[in-house]
């Protein structure tokens, strides 16, 4: 085990897969010589050269169009969209083309590509560079959607995404880039579509994603220490495919579901989980489902205001103490 940062785990996963498979190529803005604007791809340009690690113009549609074309013709591209907000400008290619190619060709064509992107708030980038848009991707049939919360999951899930024969949207939460964690040495591949139970508790099941996972864990420790409430914490990790077995099992155990979501409240991913839980295990629920989310607003840039909008550990504790029991 080595201790890596979340950003180092990105480069480690890409390097692992590029060494293993010559068909894996990487393209995006400032990903090569500069090592990425978030320094998540340092060293790749030097090791794999300008053909396989390709800096592109500032043109998101061109990046994804090229990725799609190369995937259609046999490569396994990784495309970076610097800020996930910019996915909006290439949504036709993502939603109508990449997501639909396998279906519309009757399986004659696969789309083995990964779209990596820096997602979410907490870094004071304002309304156009801070959005948490994993729910945009989740609602498009034909896309897989992954959002890791730890360096180990970044490495294992990104490797799995690169090997997957279908398009995977890989959301890296940009405020997590500096966090450190133990990452398995050597070749390490995780499994898409699996949630992880990070903490066992008997009173309430907190389901969280990406940057909300460490906050949920911190909240769970405080709930235990100060309020005698034991929370189970589930890291969803993958929105599509969704590990409903794990989520339903853990919610059944406590009878209470709390989702902690960074995306804006309306149609956030937690709404879908709440719906599945209500459909499948309604008679196991021992109280109302609760969703803790960013409100349905454009994200402010001011420090205090941004902090006030995103779910914090303190807010998770407060809302659970006030509403769960």
């Amino acid at each position, binding site marked *: 085990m080595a201790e890596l940062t979340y950003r180092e785990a990105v480069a480690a996963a890409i390097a692992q897969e590029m060494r293993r498979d010559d068909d894996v190529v990487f393209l995006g803005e400032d990903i090569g010589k500069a090592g990425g604007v978030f320094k998540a791809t340092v060293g790749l340009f030097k090791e794999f050269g300008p053909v396989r690690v390709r800096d592109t113009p500032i043109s998101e549609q061109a990046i994804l169009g090229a990725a799609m074309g190369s995937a259609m013709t046999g490569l396994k591209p990784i495309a970076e969209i610097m800020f996930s907000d910019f996915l909006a400008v290439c949504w036709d290619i993502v939603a109508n083309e990449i997501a639909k190619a396998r279906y519309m060709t009757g399986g004659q064509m696969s789309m083995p590509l990964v779209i990596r992107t820096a997602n979410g708030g907490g870094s004071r980038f304002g309304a156009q560079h801070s959005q948490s848009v994993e729910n945009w991707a989740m609602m498009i049939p034909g896309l897989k959607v992954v959002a890791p919360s730890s360096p180990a999951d970044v490495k294992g899930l990104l490797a799995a995404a690169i090997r997957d024969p279908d398009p995977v949207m890989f959301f890296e939460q940009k405020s997590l880039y500096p966090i450190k964690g133990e990452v398995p040495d050597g070749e390490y591949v995780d499994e898409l579509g699996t949630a992880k139970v990070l903490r066992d508790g008997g009173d309430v099941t907190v389901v969280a994603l990406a940057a909300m996972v460490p906050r949920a864990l911190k909240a769970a420790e405080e709930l*235990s*220490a*100060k*309020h*005698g*409430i034991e929370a189970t914490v589930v890291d969803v990790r993958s929105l599509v495919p969704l590990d409903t077995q794990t989520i339903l099992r853990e919610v059944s155990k406590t*009878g209470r579901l709390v989702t902690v979501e960074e995306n804006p409240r309306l149609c956030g991913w937690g709404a879908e989980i709440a719906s599945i839980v209500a459909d499948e295990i*309604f*008679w*196991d*629920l*021992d*109280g109302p489902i609760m969703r803790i989310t960013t409100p349905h607003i454009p994200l402010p840039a001011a420090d205090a205001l941004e902090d006030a909008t995103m779910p914090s550990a303190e807010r998770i504790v407060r809302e659970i*103490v006030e509403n769960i*029991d």
Partner: protein
Amino acid sequence: MDVIMPQLGETVSEGTVSVWHSKIGDKVSTKAPLFDVSSDKVEMEVPAPAEGTLLEIRVDAGATVPVGEVVAIIVREGEVIEAAAAPVAKAETVAPKTAAAPVRDVSVKSANRDARGNPLSPAVRRLVAENSLDPAAISGTGLNGRLKKKDVLAYLADGGSARSASPSPSRAMPKPAPLDFSGEDTEVIPFNNLRRLTAEHMVRSKATSPHVLQAVEADFARIARARSGVSAAWKKREGFSLTYLPFIAKAVCEAIREFPRVNGAIDGENLVVFRRINLGIAVDLDFDGLVAPVVKGAGEMTLHELARAIRDVSDRARNNQLKPDDFTDGTYTISNSGVFGTMITAPIINQPQVAILSTDGITKKPVVIETEDGDTIGIRPVGVLAQSFDHRAIDGAYSAAFLNRVREIIQTKDWATVLA
């Protein structure tokens, strides 16, 4: 025309047909009751909605149906009705409380609120339906006393008995770890029936009667002298030793004649005073339980008879030969822990009596004796008589006067003559 289940109140959603006053074919009238309806709130007579003939009864007496349901059909003069095919609701099929109701049916259950009026969660509704429970009978520990799934599970684990867990609106205290009684350091002794009955009786007595303890110290010198004079002969004649207890019992019976209210029971707001004295004698079964068989008619007995009767019930208690009648109609109880040399015991009243006396160890002590020539110190056998009384029935002065009289009798009666 249809006869429907009426709305018996704003919050009532269903009603039970308790009785039909008419048979099929009878003439019915708006001025006479057609059937009676009961709900959890009211009972009322329902007249026919129109003059006519009772054509069909769709709901049997005893069955519960929702408000608005057709319970009968009447045909008015000249009215033509097509044969209705709906089956008659049978009393036993409508009330879904007996067997485990299917989960899908819980939405139609009547009471989906707990004792505090909080709505029941789906998990609680399911448990309540599957186990045919009354949610209002289960204590909730959630916010505002909300009934949680774990409360129902705990209730079921307790065999469905009502728990008195108080709601915990303040959750600042972390939950204590559950007690773990397993392991080699512990032995778990299940309650036998006697233990369970004793436990229930003791809790009930303490919960029923405000106990007050009073004690006096008595000088047993006269009794000791009388006893020692006859003890060998007594043992030879009777086959058992003469203890202090029959003397105390005799003194108690005599004192009760003067203070009869300690020999009673509370019935509602009345104190029932018994003329007959039936003395309960607490007997320990070699640490395996406690019984209090009754010596009946103790007030009419001589000291000898008392001694034999006490001996008889004690022997039969230890040999497990007591009959149900031996436990009935007690009016006052004496508990004797003296054999172990205790100084004072606060006894628990044997319900529904109002007082109980504990006699403890009688030991030699230096006692100040007043004489005409001044005070001297003598060595006397001294013991404490402690009475717990029900303060609802009598007050401290009365109890104290009774105790003082018992002491006087013990200390001043000519026991040697009584024994002769």
